[in-house]
């Protein structure tokens, strides 16, 4: 009897909300078919069975925030043929990367009453800052269809189909009226990577950047337009500092505006 060995899949968790790995379990129509194609070899949230590595494909959720995790990710890399990060935490440090903007020493002094109990790093960082990553799947959370597509690509060959253009492109495709042009609602769509399906404008709200920066985003121009629409500097800082705050283009732009907020405060202090 001919029997081919199924490729082995592993799913790993670092600092995260579990939502991106849940996306795999949310593939209600496809999950059993996926399980026929691959061996779910190490997926703690779904199974108590652990099959030893090496693994053909590792999906990595979460960011690195502890010394222990910075070692563990090295082991995961060594055990994996392909390593794909899933979601904003693994790809950009996640919402927990907001700590990166704080003065770490002060922050720790405020936060820890029992510092000896907790080990944490000053920064929350993306997986690619620690190990080689074969592909980064974006989103907070990731898209189900993109996840299935990326798994297909890595297990059967081919290229993942995850275009790096902006949310605006998807709005045009869906025929959604632009909330920024028509209603003056600030929207991060022009600088945000597509993948969500441009949901927010359909629900009458501006994009808030769940999928992080698109390829070569013009953040400066968008921020200026948001300012013209009445957004204050500190609000521009806030919208850029969500789930992808530490992604370089968003970080750089938010820091520029943060400096302006400080400038305004200093000017006030001097005049008053």
């Amino acid at each position, binding site marked *: 009897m001919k029997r081919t060995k199924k490729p082995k899949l592993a799913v790993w968790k670092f600092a995260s909300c*579990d939502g991106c790995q849940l996306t795999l379990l949310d593939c209600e*129509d496809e999950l059993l078919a996926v399980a026929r194609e691959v061996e779910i070899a190490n997926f703690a949230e*779904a199974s*108590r069975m652990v099959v030893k590595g090496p693994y053909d494909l590792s999906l990595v959720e979460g960011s690195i925030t502890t010394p222990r995790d910075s070692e563990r990710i090295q082991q995961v890399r060594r055990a994996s043929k392909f390593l794909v990060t899933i979601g904003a935490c693994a790809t950009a440090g996640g919402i927990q990367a907001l700590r990166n903007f704080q003065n770490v020493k002060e922050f720790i002094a405020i936060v820890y*009453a*029992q510092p000896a109990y907790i080990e944490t790093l000053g920064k929350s960082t993306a997986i690619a800052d620690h190990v080689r990553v074969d592909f980064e799947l974006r989103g907070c959370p990731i898209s189900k269809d993109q996840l299935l597509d990326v798994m297909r690509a890595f297990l059967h060959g081919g290229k993942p189909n995850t275009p790096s253009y902006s949310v605006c492109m998807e709005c045009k495709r869906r025929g959604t009226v632009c909330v920024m042009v028509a209603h003056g609602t600030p929207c991060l769509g022009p600088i945000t990577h597509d993948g969500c399906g441009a949901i927010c404008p359909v629900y009458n709200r501006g994009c808030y950047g769940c999928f992080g920066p698109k390829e070569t985003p013009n953040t400066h121009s968008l921020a200026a337009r948001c300012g013209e629409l009445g957004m204050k500097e500190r609000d521009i800082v806030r919208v850029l500092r969500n789930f992808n705050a530490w992604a370089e283009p968003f970080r750089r732009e938010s820091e520029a505006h943060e400096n302006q907020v400080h400038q305004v405060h200093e000017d006030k202090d001097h005049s008053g």
Partner: protein
Amino acid sequence: MKTKSTKSTKTRTIRVDYLTRVEGEGGLYVKVKGGTVVDVKLKIFEPPRFFEAFLRGRSCEEAADITSRICGICPIAYQMSAVHAIEDALGVKVEGQLRALRRLVYCGEWIESHTLHVYMLHAPDFLGYPDAIRMAKDHPDIVQRGLQLKKAGNEIVRLIGGREIHPINVRVGGFYKVPAKESLRALAEQLKWARDAALETVRWVATLPFPEFEQDFLFVALRHEKEYPFNEGRIVSNRGLDIPVHGYDQLFSEEHIAYSSALHSEMKDQGAYFVGPLARYNLNFDRLSPLAREAAIAAGLQPACRNPFQSIVVRSVEILHACEEALRIIEQYEMPETPAVKYEMKAGTGYACTEAPRGILYHRYRFDAHGTILDAKIVPPTSQNQKTIENDLKQFVPANLSLPEEDLRWRCEQIVRNYDPCISCSTHFLKLQMERV
């Protein structure tokens, strides 16, 4: 490894280094000496993410989007507790169809989250499988039913919330957009199927083998004057507690334990308490839909159930109730004129407790006249259940030392899974505890 009988005076340890089929990262450690449990630790090593710390300085209008990122399994719970707490501070009342839509989206989350637990995380323990996927080889129809039931819950969340995980449509005052009557009607057919599937689920889980393990728990849940609780109610217990949500901080406190990155909650002068489906059921049996009550009794439950292994039955009864409630809301739905109630920003402190799938989820926010958050407190259900889980292990292990090592370890894992712990949720709460010390 060979094991000795209970008479042995040898020290024995049961360790589970990495708990599986739970949300988040935790382990388990039980030390037994001469037939007595001398140490039990539910170890939580999920890295802290400091939500309360970075909520400071954010706008209260962002709290729903930010706190939903605490948990990918129950984001609606975080959004609901957040907006209700902020509305409490602003004196905003969300009523009528907008209120009903919030219940509806919460029904969707209960169905999705409970079904995930019943079919994929909990049931495999009773039937001796490592997971639902391997269980599907022998029971394909059952697992398929579970997946489709879960999908029905997710469909509700997706339609109202925009997507299943971290929905985008919930805001202070209501929603960004409300669905048309016809689009909700389209859900009704799927939900009728789901209601039948939920009823079959109750019947199926009732046949699972349950160890005898009744405990005298202190149950804490919300209670509403007319409804099974979701977003509103007073905090009550089976020992006479009956307080408004504002009183939470006076009676419940948290402690920082060395081996856990989640705080342990306690009730003043009472110690450990129990939140979640079993607590809700015991305190609100009379508020369940008639069909859900009937199904519970037919499944062999009493109006009081004190065996946490049977939480799988109670969760299934709640799925059935949520399907019926969702159908009722859809039936009576008329599209509201505006998607959100208007409000004026002002300084204040607001409190809310809602019933997340895993139990009461408490939020408190204080913000200034611009709506900038000055401090925030969030207490998720799992940190409230930690002490009770440890107590269960202390009770269960000595009585079952004769079990072979692997069986006993598996049973211990199951005791933890009885609570459907969400460790990702429970690990964001160090900040507040630290501030108080």
